[in-house]
């Protein structure tokens, strides 16, 4: 049943040109950063830079693309999640969904999964785009894989939080604004504790956990953080819809 809902969500994204346009525009943004990255690499590395500070082309270009990707996703994901539940509520189709012979968990997981499949296409495209560097250079695939896993977990966390805010309100645009603000706060939280990097509050920041992936490191604690983040907001969404169903 989860798969059916996920398929329906995906179909509704690709039924209109909307899904294609989003993919194309985002890829254009990532592609242009990729090209500037390659350009800058030759400019910077051919200049007077100390040999100890030189980095490989994978890291130089990968860092450019993945850091901008995490930032662009911060805007893109709330716009995609905003209509998932609040649109159903506004068009009064939520009672139909509740009365269907599926559990609330399946509904929420299905919607989440549909969105994740859509976003996975983007993450995979970015990975493919960066592997084209392999034609000219010998690149570090492990670094790219770690970054892709990190980015994937990051957008999954964005979506989970976005779905939660979408379940709170009737207006999709309010859901988008709320989830954007809270995601932005979570992303830059560690900046406020920059002078005390071991403070436990900085541990809550999404960016801090993305960083170890962006260095090519798979850390169990960071995997657990993303897993807990996603499951927390999905559970809260299910609880919220359950309360709706009870009150009628």
């Amino acid at each position, binding site marked *: 049943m989860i798969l059916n809902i996920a398929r329906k969500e995906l179909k509704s994204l690709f039924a209109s040109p909307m899904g294609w346009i989003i993919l194309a525009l985002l890829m254009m943004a990532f592609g242009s950063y990729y090209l500037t990255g390659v350009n800058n690499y030759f400019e910077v590395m051919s200049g007077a830079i100390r040999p100890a500070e030189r980095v490989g082309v994978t890291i130089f270009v990968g860092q450019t693309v993945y850091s901008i990707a995490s930032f662009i996703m911060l805007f893109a994901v709330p716009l995609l999640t905003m209509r998932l539940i609040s649109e159903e509520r506004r068009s009064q189709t939520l009672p139909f969904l509740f009365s269907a012979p599926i559990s609330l968990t399946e509904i929420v997981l299905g919607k989440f999964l549909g969105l994740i499949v859509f976003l996975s296409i983007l993450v995979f495209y970015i990975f493919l785009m960066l592997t084209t560097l392999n034609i000219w250079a010998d690149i570090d695939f492990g670094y790219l894989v770690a970054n892709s896993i990190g980015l994937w977990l990051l957008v999954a966390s964005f979506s989970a939080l976005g779905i939660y805010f979408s379940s709170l309100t009737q207006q999709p645009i309010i859901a988008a604004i709320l989830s954007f603000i809270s995601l932005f706060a979570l992303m830059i939280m560690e900046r406020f504790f920059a002078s005390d*990097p*071991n403070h436990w509050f900085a541990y809550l920041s999404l960016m801090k956990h993305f960083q170890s992936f962006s260095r090519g*490191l*798979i*850390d169990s604690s960071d995997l*657990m953080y993303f897993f*807990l983040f996603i*499951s927390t907001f999905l559970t809260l969404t299910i609880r919220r819809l359950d309360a709706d169903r009870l009150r009628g």
Partner: protein
Amino acid sequence: MKINSKLRLQILIQNSFFVVLFIVLVFLLGFLANQYRFSKDITQANRNTLTTGSVNVLKQMKGPITLTVFASKDDVNNGDTFRQGIINFMTRYQRTKPDINIKFISPVEEPKLAQEMGIKVDGEVVVEYQKRSEHINPPFAEQEMTNLFMRLSRTNQQAVMYLDGHGERNLIGLKNNDVGEFGKQLESKGFKFANPNLTVESEVPLNGSMLVIASPQKKYFFY
């Protein structure tokens, strides 16, 4: 189901209990995951892993190591970036030896303490291990840090003795036929030198670890 105010209160209490307990559980799991962490470096160049030399040095060191970093706090001098840089740099060591603790002290806020510790540069790091300490100034890389750890872990304080005055290659000399560069390497790894004066002392002192006689050009006379 009819909902009256009593039932509504019950539901509210039930829900808030659930949310509070759930969030406590999530924080607990997050805390546990942070305590028992393991990580894998999947880059091809192993850029997040220490070299085997450093790992061997760390393995010989029993007991905690404390790093006290005297770095200013504000962003004017890039203090925050520097602090984050130190943490990123030391995580490679901490993954091999978890009981490396890092403490940050702003020399601007505690000038007295900085003076007592003899801090001269912003960003100076005091490394303590088994009641002995050494200072290191930025910029430093893995080689310098590992050499410092090696110096600290060398408890044997018996000196390396060398003779001179007979045309030997000198361990602290600068001339062409001297081995001063080798001496510097030994010194950076924690060896101490002593130069026994055999014209004053009647025999070679017993408290040294070894006596280096590096290709003398003249004959020795022992009485």
